[in-house]
């Protein structure tokens, strides 16, 4: 049995009257690549943001390697360094160069030396194919390049898992490929990944497990083969029919 990295129990989230997540139970094991699919507004991104504490869950508990993150004395800062996050809008630090984006966390949070941080940054920038651009500012890069730097920034913290929140949704069709390629490489390398995506083909190819969310609940959860060829839930069937027909 592999280690459980994240476990979510009875999680719900309300925005005012609006119940976005309803009693979610969900787990991610070490080395898994889990893709969360579903139509817009089904709560996929909110779930991800609750896990990374960018949103505070209304009720329920989140366990990191078996410890409730609300346990007194549990450092949420430390917890966040263990979970990388890649955003839809990249969110690179606009005032920093590519290298600066990748070394800031390691230097300030992990207290690495500048030299060490630089070495790590170059290693991961090389992985995403952006090592040639260390001097560039985010505004000088294309969306795909920015997103690859954002992935390198997350990798530089050497996290336990990386959460991807629709990493290709803000990209044009041409650059989506370059980002997905990097993510495929990472998946192969054994990194634990939790990906919210609309790229069905990608989800089918790389996931160890696919989660289908609908209206704030997990409607179905299965291997990609089962979900894409033989879905149990009629809602899943309907969703896939709509998205794959496009």
């Amino acid at each position, binding site marked *: 049995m592999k280690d459980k990295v994240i476990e979510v129990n009875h999680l719900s989230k309300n925005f005012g009257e609006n119940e976005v997540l309803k009693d979610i139970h969900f787990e991610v094991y070490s080395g898994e690549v889990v893709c969360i699919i579903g139509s817009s507004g089904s709560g996929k991104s909110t779930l991800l943001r609750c896990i*990374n504490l960018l949103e505070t869950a209304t009720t329920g508990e989140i366990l990191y390697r078996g410890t409730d993150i609300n346990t007194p004395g549990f450092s949420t800062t430390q917890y966040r360094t263990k979970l990388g996050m890649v955003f839809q809008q990249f969110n690179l630090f606009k005032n920093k160069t590519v290298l600066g984006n990748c070394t800031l966390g390691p230097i300030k949070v992990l207290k690495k030396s500048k030299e060490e941080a630089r070495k790590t940054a170059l290693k991961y920038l090389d992985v995403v194919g952006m090592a040639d*651009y260390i001097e560039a500012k985010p505004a000088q890069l294309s969306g795909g390049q920015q997103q690859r730097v954002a992935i390198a920034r997350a990798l530089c913290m050497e996290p336990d898992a990386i959460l991807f929140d629709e990493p290709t949704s803000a990209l044009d069709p041409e650059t989506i490929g370059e980002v997905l390629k990097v993510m495929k490489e990472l998946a192969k390398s054994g990194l634990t990944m939790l990906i919210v995506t609309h790229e069905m083909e990608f989800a089918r190819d790389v996931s160890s497990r696919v989660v289908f969310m609908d209206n704030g609940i997990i409607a179905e959860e299965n291997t990609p083969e089962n979900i894409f060829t033989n879905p149990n839930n009629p809602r899943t069937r309907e969703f896939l029919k709509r998205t794959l027909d496009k």
Partner: protein
Amino acid sequence: MSSEPSFFQISYNIFLQYWPMFLKGTIVTLILAIAGTLTGTVIGLLIGVVRTIPTHPHDSTFKKILLKILNIILTIYIEVFRGTPMIVQSMVIFYGVPILFGIKLGVFQAAYFIVSINTGAYMSEIVRGGILSIDKGQFEASSSIGMSHFQTMVNVVMPQVIRNILPATGNEFVINIKDTSVLNVIGVSELFFASKSIAGNNFKYFEVYLITSIIYLICTYSVTQLLRFAERRIEGRDSYTIHGSTTLTDSKFEIRPGRS
């Protein structure tokens, strides 16, 4: 028989005769404006950071109450100093502080304090606006790599805010060069005070104050140009080098965007 000296000759002679006084006044004005603007900006940055500290539902009640009280105090400070004229504040502070606190303020100390605290009130609102204008994603990205609010502010947000508020800061600086003139009411020997003394000597009010205006204009214009220059410097290089190889940095070529 010599004709009446022309207007320009009179002005020129006044300037030749009194230039050391004009110069002294100008120096005091500039020092007060620079020191006051800088201190005010620092006050504004600090208050801006405090006023945007986020509260989480998990935070202790103590922290929440403390922040609430701090916020109320800061709001009162800002409203009072933005809502009253600096000339009145000068009188109240200069004559009030010795009575209320038993501290004897020197004229220059009082002047520096008044300009700083006044600028601080305006700057803190400018800074707050600057912080609010920063994309929420910048904060989220910072906290997702585990940075604290303070670290985020210092390393990510403030550098962007300072760049954004630089024009407004320059504006405050220019305003301060002019507005320090009201400090003559407490007897600060700045440029207006010096002009008043000179004009009181020779009764050539028009000529003296025309020279004074020109000096103010030269000061404000130079400052504006200097700030433009600073803004361009802060923008940084708009070209970057692609290193063909990260180990052999000599194999590189440069990319330049179209704009100059």
